[in-house]
């Protein structure tokens, strides 16, 4: 008995029994797509202008799902004006308890139409339906529910100060959690009495556009939320618009630098949630089988297209072989493929451009001498897919140990002492998140103190909750979303 497992990537049949899981595709029946989408301004879906449309593609098939408007500066201007007029025309003066009721309605409508949103999210973005169904959409609803509750309690959030709304918020969100990021941005903004212009990512606009139906059914006053789809130029026009009082951006650190420079000197408030290169630190006394699950969840959740992904695994040398062995074995059971299949663990990469970037960094890892492991798995013959990847023999100087890959690629480094783990973990310009795995409570708390990171997970990873603040240190950005801290970017505190 040398090889205890007959388990292959697909649990291939041996003898008469096969544990082949059903292709269990989620029905796309609930989703009704238009062929073209206009902008959502002042409570109206505007007619799309044929010359200014861009396709949005299902990354699992390469098929065009719909054409979506690309807003230009004039469109942005209209949207900001609508937001301004809604703010001055009543939203800012509405009692908190009434603002709360609108947000509760949104939360409930999202819950009622959850499956529809989940399927659409998966179609447009490529993430596994298991995640959009169990994480993205329920959490989005929960965020609205949570911040609804703050709308009439702001006096208790900041003792000694009154929280006043800021005005019009310009919100630019990424493609990795499209609906959830919309909820993270809109819920606190609206709860605090601001109005918003939201710009979804070019590759994933559809759930934000579906959200307009929810806002309409919730009878949210016209102009309180405006949605302008478009490209980078649209985003630039929005954040630089003089009628905007507050800019909130989630995306890459490079784009964050540009926006920071753009906003500088304008008096606009700014919060940034940017990239990351999180260390996931495993001590020898940790619960190794749950560590394995935590590493997998940390780097392969949403195909690693997560700013807080645990992309650098730091393992204590005494258990490095054991952990890597367990990890490889677990990777062999990951299912890569149709994101709409309920058994799929890793879906499609969001776009060809992202797939190219991942491939380029993987190639650099091999070229720089790291050792690559990927389980044998068949990738679909169309769409954008990347197998889960694991690099060992990685040094802190390698590009794969320094740059954010934003894909299902894990770099493994080792350490001998806690101090060495701390030094390696903090040896990055980023500081979004970190993971600590040990059964020793005092070490968790000591390590947490040392981490230069905005979120520290101990014996778990990639947990999110509306009540828990999220955001980065250093070049991972500033400002927090979630919890009481998540109100601060959207209020002015007055005596």
């Amino acid at each position, binding site marked *: *008995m*040398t090889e*205890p*497992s*007959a*388990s292959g990537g697909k*649990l*291939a*049949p*041996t*003898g*008469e*029994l*096969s*544990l*082949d*899981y*059903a*292709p*269990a595709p989620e029905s796309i029946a609930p989703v009704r797509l238009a062929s073209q989408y206009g902008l959502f301004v002042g409570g109206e879906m505007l007619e799309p202008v044929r010359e200014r449309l861009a396709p949005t593609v299902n990354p699992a098939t390469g098929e065009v799902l719909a054409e979506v408007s690309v807003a230009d500066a004039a469109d942005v201007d209209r949207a900001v004006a609508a937001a301004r007029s809604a703010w001055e025309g009543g939203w800012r003066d509405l009692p908190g308890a009434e603002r709360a009721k609108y947000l509760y309605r949104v939360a409930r409508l999202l819950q009622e139409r959850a499956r529809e949103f989940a399927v659409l999210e998966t179609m447009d973005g490529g993430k596994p339906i*298991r995640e959009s169904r169990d994480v993205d959409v329920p959490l989005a609803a929960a965020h609205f529910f949570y911040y609804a509750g703050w709308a009439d309690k702001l006096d208790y959030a900041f003792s000694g100060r009154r929280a006043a709304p800021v005005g019009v918020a310009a919100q630019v969100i990424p493609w990795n959690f499209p609906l959830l990021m919309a909820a993270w941005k809109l819920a606190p903004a609206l709860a605090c009495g601001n109005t918003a212009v939201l710009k979804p990512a070019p590759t994933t606009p559809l759930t934000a556009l579906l959200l307009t139906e929810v806002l309409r059914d919730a009878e949210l006053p016209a102009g309180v939320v405006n949605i302008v789809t478009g490209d980078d130029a649209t985003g630039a026009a929005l954040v630089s618009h003089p009628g905007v009082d507050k800019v909130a951006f989630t995306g890459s650190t490079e784009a964050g630098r540009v926006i920071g420079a753009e906003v500088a000197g304008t008096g606009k408030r700014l919060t940034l949630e940017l990239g990351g290169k999180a260390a996931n630190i495993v001590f020898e*006394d*940790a*619960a*190794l*089988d*749950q560590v394995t*699950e*935590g590493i997998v969840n940390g780097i392969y959740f949403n195909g690693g297209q997560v700013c807080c992904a645990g992309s650098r695994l730091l393992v204590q040398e005494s*258990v490095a*072989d*054991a952990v890597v*062995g367990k990890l490889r074995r677990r990777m062999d*059971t990951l299912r890569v493929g149709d994101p709409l299949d*309920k*058994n799929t663990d890793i879906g499609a990469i969001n776009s060809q451009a992202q797939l190219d970037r991942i491939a380029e960094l993987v190639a650099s890892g091999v070229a720089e001498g790291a050792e690559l492991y990927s389980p044998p798995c068949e990738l679909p013959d169309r769409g954008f897919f990347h197998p889960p990847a694991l690099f060992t023999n990685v040094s802190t100087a390698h590009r794969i140990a320094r740059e954010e890959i934003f894909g299902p690629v894990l770099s493994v480094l080792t350490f001998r002492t806690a101090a060495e783990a701390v030094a390696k973990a903090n040896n990055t310009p980023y500081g979004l998140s970190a993971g600590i795995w040990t*059964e020793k409570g005092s070490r968790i708390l000591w390590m947490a103190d040392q981490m230069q990171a905005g979120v520290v997970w101990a*014996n*778990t990873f990639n947990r999110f909750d509306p009540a828990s603040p999220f955001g980065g240190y250093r070049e991972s950005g500033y400002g927090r979303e979630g919890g009481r801290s998540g109100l601060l970017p959207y209020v002015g505190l007055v005596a």
Partner: protein
Amino acid sequence: MSDLLAVGVPAHTADAVAGVRITPVDAVGLEQRAAALCTRSIKSSSKQAALDLAIRVMDLTTLEGADTAARVQALCARARRPDAGDWSVPPVAAVCVYPELAPVAVDALAGSSVAVASVAGGFPAGLAPLESRLAEIAWAVAAGAGEVDIVLNRSAFLSGRYQQAYDEIVAAKQACGSAHLKVILETGELGAYDQIRRASMLAMVAGADFIKTSTGKIGASSTPATALCMAEAIRDMAEQTGRVVGLKLAGGIRTAKQAWHYQVIVGETLGLGWLTPERFRLGASSLLNDVLMQRAKLRDGRYQRREDFSVD
């Protein structure tokens, strides 16, 4: 971890038994993983095989004080041919009874592939004097039981007398001779997954051929997380020593869906090679009918009526 593989050195400390390392268990992570495995969907073409496997690994069990020869004979008849109307249904793995009734089962199952399993060793508490427990095991084997299900001495284990718990299993294994030894941990009494993992390692190192979750005699029964915890222990045992130990899940398993969940847990954790009667058993008294109902549903395409299946 190769330096930890000094098997045979009794070092029954908290984190190693006989040199085999015991890793701690995080309850939250374990339960999340188990729950995730229970959401897997099965292909309809695999369903038949999965249902048949559930029957082929079943230890059809009756452990009541009111058991009689007639009841055991009826159970054995079902064990040989679970569905009188459908000869394609395979026989179960074993019939599990009290020792007194083992000879009845041996006679009733003569000539079939169905094994006779007997509980012994002071089941279900395991607190009879050691001599009598060992005598009971020897008696059951002499009566023809090919498999013996005993309980871990939880009294010794929970009070930290690991050496005693270990030595008793070693002695039981000796008393078994060539019969297979299954050691019931009674996981519902152990209080924490760490303890379940520790008890699993202790029983395996002491010589258990199978480790088993529950007696079915207390409220707490087998759960997906317990099964996963024990499967992970078995995997570590195999990886660290090369020794193959089987897993028997028992207590509260009543539906084909539960049986399927356990197959997924074992298959994904230990590999398909574990999904055979030699390495995997489901102990149950009321599971068979639900499996047969699902099988009939697969055959006829309609949901079945419980009353149409045998009451034995």
